[in-house]
């Protein structure tokens, strides 16, 4: 008979019982002829059985309330916390003076880095989106140059999201200054001239990952999130319902999982 040679991978697949029946039989026959290898494979099988037995009770434990999925879905549907923080922060800041300054310090110390990011995106939107002369520094026609520039300054590869499917064309972008260092801003517009801003920058260590939350300051609305250390915020003068799918699209393109 002409058997394929038995490999180390076959032995593990034998232990894990994922071989085709025919191959399983070939390995079994091989093990019959090679007691040393058979002993090792038997030990691996014992390990597997022991581990499964040792860990099985964990999966039998009743789920704590925090892991109740229906509750997580419900909580999420009515969670306004970040947006509320942002509004409270803006309100207090607008009171101005030392009081506002002190609150700013307190908020910076808070772990909610998305609030800061959304504020920065909104500030950029408010300054650059109404600009009819030079809303962007590097135009879409030079997007390769734009990508190179912001990637260099952010010390990581930055991709420009393509929002054509949502009806928005890239106008271009620029580097903007934030309290947390440089950020890349991209601006888009649609056939009606309404503009969107996407702002992205590295997040501080505490906020490496944060779920997408809705943000609004005045009539500038949008979403912010962080994936693997990079924060994103999408803002515009539009209803959250129309912005959410676009934010999802930006997120999908930036980090498909």
């Amino acid at each position, binding site marked *: 008979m002409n058997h394929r040679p038995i*490999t*180390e*991978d076959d*032995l*593990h*697949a034998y*232990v*894990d019982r*994922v071989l085709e029946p025919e191959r399983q039989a070939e390995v079994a026959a091989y093990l019959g002829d090679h007691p*040393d*290898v058979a*002993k*090792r494979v038997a*030990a*691996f099988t014992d*390990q*597997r059985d*022991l*581990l*499964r*037995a*040792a*860990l*099985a009770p*964990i*999966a*039998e*434990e009743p*789920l*704590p309330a*925090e*892991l109740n*999925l*229906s509750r*997580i*879905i419900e909580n*999420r549907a009515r969670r306004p916390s970040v947006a509320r923080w942002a509004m409270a922060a803006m309100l207090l800041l607008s009171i101005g003076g030392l009081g506002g300054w002190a609150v700013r310090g307190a908020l910076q110390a808070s772990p909610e880095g998305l609030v800061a990011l959304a504020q920065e995106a909104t500030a950029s939107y408010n300054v650059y989106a109404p600009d009819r002369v030079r809303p962007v520094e590097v135009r879409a026609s030079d997007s390769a140059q734009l990508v190179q520039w912001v990637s260099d300054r952010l010390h990581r590869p930055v991709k420009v999201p393509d929002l054509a499917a949502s009806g928005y064309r890239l106008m271009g972008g620029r580097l903007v200054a934030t309290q947390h260092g440089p950020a890349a801003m991209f601006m888009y517009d649609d056939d009606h001239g309404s503009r969107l801003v996407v702002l992205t920058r590295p997040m501080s*260590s505490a906020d*490496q*990952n944060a*779920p*997408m939350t809705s943000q609004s300051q005045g009539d500038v609305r949008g979403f912010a999130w962080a994936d*693997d250390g990079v924060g994103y915020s999408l803002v515009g003068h539009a209803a959250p319902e129309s912005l959410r799918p676009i934010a*999802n699209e930006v*997120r*999908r393109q930036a980090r*498909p*999982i």
Partner: protein
Amino acid sequence: MKDMLLQVEPLIPALRRYARALVRNRANADDLVQDCLERAVSRWYQRRDGDVRAWLFTILHNLAVNQFRQSASRGRHVPIDETNEDNFGEAAAQEQKLMVQDVLNKLARLPEDQRAVLLLVAVEDLSYADAAKVLNIPVGTVMSRLSRARERLQQEIEGIADNISTNVVPLRSEK
């Protein structure tokens, strides 16, 4: 969200088991699973087609790795339950129950990447391809890590004293 409930809820016990075996601390593990579920809820409509289980394990694993990194950078070690290690004498080790507890203590001595692959494959029944996706490594690396994990765990189980045994005949040298 209803299909999500149907597809994700049955997997929560396995996610808990993986998290607990990986970080060895009940509260930390359940926190990770909670984070994982929250992310799963928020990304449900963005996930690519494919196995929901592998997708959830990917989210969970990435969260666990982030936690490992953060605690490593703070110089804090993930607590490892070393309780009554010394009580496992030769006589007691005969008992299945103690062996079961013992194997977890031995497992905890493996490097995190080896532990992860062994748990995903041998306990959670992920295919080698799905384990590769979860760990974001090639399948070949899954296989070599799995091999190293099993050899290492066997050495732990047999104890240092048994290392002179010539019965262990690896078929190939370790990479």
